[in-house]
């Protein structure tokens, strides 16, 4: 009789539990920041995106999960600024926006075409707001006053709601459940409304700060 000894498979280290840091990779994003972004993204998926997409009452779930999303999103923004500085963080955000536009164009064909057009338009709108904010920060304005600060808070709230919609929609892939698809389509139209509101709030802030352009001599 020939006996064979089969070696039991060795337990593979779980990367998420390993105490040994992974090999550093060539990346524009520092390793510590990448870990924070990844951890926040995982937390966001579990505690916000999946519950929102699978909700029976979308509005109620959206409202209930918003504070968690805002906390995770703020934590991500603070980490980006802390690691990269404001200029690089803004540049990375602009790059991320372009990436999301590409993903939406190429991979979101399963959504209602009209809602998809709304999502494209809202991404363009948020791009304009982003550009306005970047120009504002480049101008070195430090004292925006109480009213200006109020507008900025409202702008960021609308942007937060916009990004919650976009993140949730981007998390939805080809899920078989019709309710997920319905919720994703509703979130597309909400994203459009939130983007419009963010653009109005930011435009108001600019007017309040005196950052405006005359129309020139077009009346002549």
């Amino acid at each position: 009789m020939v006996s064979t000894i089969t070696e039991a498979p060795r337990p593979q280290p779980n990367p998420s539990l390993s105490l040994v840091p992974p090999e550093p990779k060539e990346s524009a994003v520092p390793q510590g920041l990448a870990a924070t972004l990844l951890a926040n993204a995982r937390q966001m998926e579990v505690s916000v995106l999946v519950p929102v997409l699978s909700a029976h009452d979308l509005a109620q779930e959206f409202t209930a999960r918003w504070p968690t999303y805002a906390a995770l999103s703020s934590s991500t923004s603070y980490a980006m600024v802390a690691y990269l500085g404001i200029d690089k963080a803004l540049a990375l955000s602009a790059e991320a926006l372009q990436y999301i536009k590409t993903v939406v164009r190429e991979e979101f064909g399963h959504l209602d075409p009209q809602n998809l057009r709304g999502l494209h338009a809202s991404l363009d709108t948020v791009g304009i707001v982003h550009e306005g904010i970047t120009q504002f920060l480049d101008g070195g304005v430090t004292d925006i006053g109480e009213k200006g600060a109020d507008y900025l808070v409202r702008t960021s709230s609308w942007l937060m709601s916009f990004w919650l919609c976009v993140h949730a929609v981007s998390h939805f892939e080809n899920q078989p459940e019709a309710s997920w698809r319905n919720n994703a389509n509703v979130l597309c139209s909400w994203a459009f409304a939130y983007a419009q509101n963010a653009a109005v709030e930011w435009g108001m802030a600019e007017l309040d700060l005196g950052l405006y352009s005359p129309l020139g001599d077009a009346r002549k």
Partner: protein
Amino acid sequence: MAYDAVLSSSAHLFLNQLTGPERQDCRNTILHSLCGEVQPEDNVTRNAGFPYRPEVMERVVGQWHFWYTFLNNQTIGIARIYYSTSNPKHPFRPL
């Protein structure tokens, strides 16, 4: 009375991404229609379901949708411009 108009940076950025004829039409609409039509007592409620904010007015003129405020008794400030629902570029306009 006819008001003068200034644009926020965001409205200016939107205007600049339009094609030449669109940009001219939008500017003409502001200067020749909107500025003559607005009244300080205008107080149009924004989208139902979103917070009401009395200091921002909305008006659709032709192919354009404007959100504006009165900066003083001679000037309106346009916070935001977008396509109206009659504009073929509005994303929710039926094809």
